[in-house]
């Protein structure tokens, strides 16, 4: 069946029924419903005698009854410095368990040791997203089942609603107390918020926290509370590598082309009337997003404008804006650098939030819906403004979605900003390889060779009337790039579907096929 953006979606793949995308807000569950969650009742003497604390993850996995076919969840707050998922699967492989589903807020290149476990069918399905080598392995058919790619908000929705049931949540905690209060702001593996793991802690049948630093009760501040944590594994096996967890300082790009694109973004925001008192703003950690944040800061200082709040992934740039009083609050689900981690620890106006509160479409309110603007990137964008962030132009799965779908559908003005040509490949194409964010969510595309505004954007007139902007159509941008790059060879796929791209509401935007070459 064709979905609302004209992509062919099969009714069923590998035993799973798919619901085609019906447009943003096209699908809502029929009524409010109550998903099943497991009650936990540990006796008072049990807890008082510190029996919640175990010395190895293996012991915990035996206690919770790990068996074939279960779903295990992980968070990616340690990013490139995560050791926990690899450590867990070293143990699991030795236990001889098979056919597991990994539900991770992100699988990273550091998790490449999982690739052989896909081939030996210890891991048969992955939910969340896959970056780098593990993603490429899935493109080459190494995963027996499916990769279900979800945005951060979509993942929270799937877990909260019971669509994605978690048997065992394994939560890396920089610090924990013996009762199970966890936080990510202290300790040598401090990573900032633990927000992506909040839905997992609330909904999983069994919650195992793993820490290298057991602190005295109560572990304050509390990110994930003891009421939700069944077991605390206190181990010497390092759960993370501080070098990979947070980068030192995120420096602003020196590339003149990216700086030009970032300053054009500010021009676009200005002409759409976004830079005003009470502004709300989110920016990513990518070069252009970061530079846009700095230029926005200059513009706000020049105009003597104060925003109301900003949202992370937090970086030194956003913290700087908070400290200068340009925003009253910084809402944060994930920290990217040391400055951001320190700010969360020390500044009461820097507030940790969970993934559902950040971006889930099916709850009573989520923060992305209040954003005035968001600056994002993409690997490809097509003439209908559909954006791809998951596959590269050569068809390989190399990235996740992050908050792309959530923020762009929630924000008043969504901007995609990127160099038109990356490594000889044009970002603007006739049809994206994989639709990840539907064009209806995108207002403006900013490149160094011109700005294209979505005709369906309510800011179309304001922006196209700005004579300082080099306004072009997507068709013009595409042709300009094509003249420089020359035509590319079409990619060939096999019939085997390896991945499903869910919209944040759980409907299917697109499917990904196994690569033929």
């Amino acid at each position: 069946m064709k979905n609302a953006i004209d992509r062919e979606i099969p009714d069923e793949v590998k035993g799973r029924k798919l619901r085609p995308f019906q447009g943003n807000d096209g699908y809502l569950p029929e009524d409010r419903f109550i998903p099943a969650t497991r009650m936990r009742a540990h006796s008072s003497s049990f807890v008082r005698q510190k029996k919640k604390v175990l010395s190895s993850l293996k012991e915990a996995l035996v206690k919770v009854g790990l068996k074939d076919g279960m779903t295990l969840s992980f968070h990616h707050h340690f990013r490139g410095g995560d050791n926990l998922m690899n450590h867990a699967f070293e143990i699991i492989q030795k236990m001889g368990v098979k056919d597991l589903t990994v539900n991770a807020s992100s699988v990273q290149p550091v998790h490449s040791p999982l690739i052989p476990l896909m081939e030996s069918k210890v891991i048969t399905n992955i939910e969340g997203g896959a970056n780098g080598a593990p993603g490429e392995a899935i493109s080459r058919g190494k995963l027996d089942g499916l990769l279900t790619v979800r945005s951060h908000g979509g993942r929270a929705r799937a877990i909260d609603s019971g669509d994605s049931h978690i048997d065992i949540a394994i939560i890396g905690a920089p610090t924990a107390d013996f009762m199970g209060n966890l936080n990510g702001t202290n300790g040598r593996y401090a990573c900032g918020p633990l927000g992506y793991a909040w839905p997992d802690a609330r909904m999983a049948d069994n919650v195992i926290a793993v820490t290298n630093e057991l602190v005295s009760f109560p572990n304050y501040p509390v990110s994930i509370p003891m009421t939700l944590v069944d077991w605390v594994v206190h181990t010497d096996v390092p759960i993370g590598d501080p070098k990979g967890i947070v980068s030192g300082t995120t420096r602003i790009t020196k590339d003149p082309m990216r700086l030009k694109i970032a300053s054009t973004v500010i021009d676009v925001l200005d002409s759409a009337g976004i830079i005003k008192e009470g502004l709300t703003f989110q920016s990513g950690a990518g070069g252009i997003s970061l530079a846009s944040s700095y230029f926005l800061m200059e513009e706000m200082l020049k105009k003597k404008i104060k925003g109301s709040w900003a949202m992370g992934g937090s970086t030194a740039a956003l913290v700087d804006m908070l400290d200068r009083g340009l925003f009253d609050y910084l809402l944060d689900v994930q920290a990217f650098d040391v400055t951001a981690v320190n700010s969360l620890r020390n500044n009461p106006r820097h507030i940790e939030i969970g993934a559902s509160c950040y971006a889930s479409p099916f709850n009573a309110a989520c923060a992305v819906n209040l954003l005035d603007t968001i600056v994002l990137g993409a690997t490809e964008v097509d003439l209908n403004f559909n954006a791809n962030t998951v596959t590269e132009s050569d068809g390989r799965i190399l990235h996740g979605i992050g908050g792309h779908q959530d923020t762009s559908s929630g924000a008043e003005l969504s901007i995609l900003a990127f160099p038109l040509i990356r490594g000889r490949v044009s970002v603007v194409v006739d049809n994206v390889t994989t639709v990840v964010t539907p064009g209806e969510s995108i207002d403006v595309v900013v490149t160094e060779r011109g700005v294209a505004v979505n005709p369906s954007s309510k800011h179309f007139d304001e922006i196209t009337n700005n004579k300082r902007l080099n306004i072009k159509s997507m068709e013009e941008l595409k042709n300009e790039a094509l003249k420089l790059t020359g035509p590319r060879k079409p990619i060939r796929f096999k019939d085997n579907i390896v991945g499903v791209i869910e919209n944040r509401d759980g409907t299917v935007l697109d499917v990904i096929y196994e690569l033929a070459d």
Partner: protein
Amino acid sequence: MDIIQTVKAGTLESGDILITISPHDSELIIELETPVESLYGEKIKQEILDFLSSLEITKGVIKAIDKGALEYTVLARMETAINRACLEEFE
């Protein structure tokens, strides 16, 4: 024109291409390494080949390490490399 010495032109910066040319007695060998192999590999090889045949060069080893160069960059680096490799021809 004949390739008489081993030379280099270009860099490994993003958007550039590093061309190394050396003499060969009998054959024309082109080796290309590029991150866009599946999309543009054949086209880049063809651009190099066309440039060489326009100068009637039929022998030599061309090693190209591409970092996403556009056609005009490929041709500019080839021109410089060939000028250097065939230097005596121009004296």
